[in-house]
């Protein structure tokens, strides 16, 4: 037995969805930014919680990151990367991948030198600097490598999954922030096109 279903107002609904479609591109980017901001803030907080101990050579166990290494991560920009549009989706990433290099002294425990480091070291890796043929022990270290060594651990450094923890514990909050911003933007856009209320 055939069923007939009739609806009213579908043309208006179709028109509203089309209008929302135009606004969706901008809304998606704005929503994504809100979500990425939640994660970036969480990572910043997590960096402050990294346990440190004065630098020492790992003999008989794993070492913790030095206070200098933590300071580098605290100062490093944990920016939201440039948005990439691919088909109907928008992507971005949060992390240290664009943080560049830090200049750090690794042998201060041996020589008594004070650690020196400098952010944004030209974006290039350089070998240890030397004075009159003697190494000063100062080298440029990529910040993502320092972050990864602390987050994932190495055979000589204790693992402290600060980044993974920040992402895993704030995934829901980020999704909620994206949803809220999306709805807000689309509603505002549709109200505007409908004469605004």
């Amino acid at each position: 037995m055939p069923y007939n279903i009739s609806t009213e107002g579908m043309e208006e609904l179709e028109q509203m969805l089309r209008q929302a479609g135009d606004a969706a591109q901008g809304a998606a980017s704005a929503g994504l930014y809100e979500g990425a901001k939640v994660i970036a803030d969480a990572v910043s907080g997590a960096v402050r919680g990294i346990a440190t101990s004065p630098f020492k050579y790992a003999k008989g166990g794993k070492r913790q990151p030095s206070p200098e290494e933590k300071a580098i991560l605290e100062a490093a920009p944990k920016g939201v990367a440039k948005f990439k549009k691919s088909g109907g989706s928008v992507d971005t990433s949060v992390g240290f991948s664009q943080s560049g290099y830090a200049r750090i002294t690794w042998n201060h425990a041996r020589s008594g030198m004070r650690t020196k480091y400098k952010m944004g070291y030209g974006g290039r890796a350089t070998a240890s600097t030397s004075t009159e043929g003697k190494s000063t022990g100062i080298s440029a270290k990529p910040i993502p490598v320092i972050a990864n060594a602390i987050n994932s651990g190495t055979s000589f450094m204790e693992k402290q999954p600060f980044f993974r923890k920040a992402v895993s514990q704030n995934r829901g909050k980020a999704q909620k922030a994206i949803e809220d911003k999306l709805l807000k933007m689309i509603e505002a856009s549709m109200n505007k096109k409908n004469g605004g209320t």
Partner: protein
Amino acid sequence: MPEEYTSLVAALKALTQGEAPNTVTLPMCENEWDTRPDADSWGTVALEFEADALHGDNLKQAEAYEGSVDLFSYKKDGDGWPALIRKALTDNCEGCWSLNSFQRERENNVFHWEWIFQVEG
């Protein structure tokens, strides 16, 4: 299959049934650093923190603990351990796991695998 595989599965099972973060050193190497020169491979399994929701749960209702398995080896094939760890994770973590990183540490020529897993809390 090495006998230690039983210990790996036991460690994973113990952790997945635990309620608090905990760490187990795998018996590939009994005393991690001291015996390292004699051991080609060693590793740890750790349940690290309470995550937001289980990744595999589309309804986002199941709470999860997140942990990792770290394998260090002087051999690029990891003495066959990577396949065994994958099997143990598949059997015990219901698909909620992934290989997070595989890299060679330049400082001491060690290969490092890191798997991330989640279990329902």
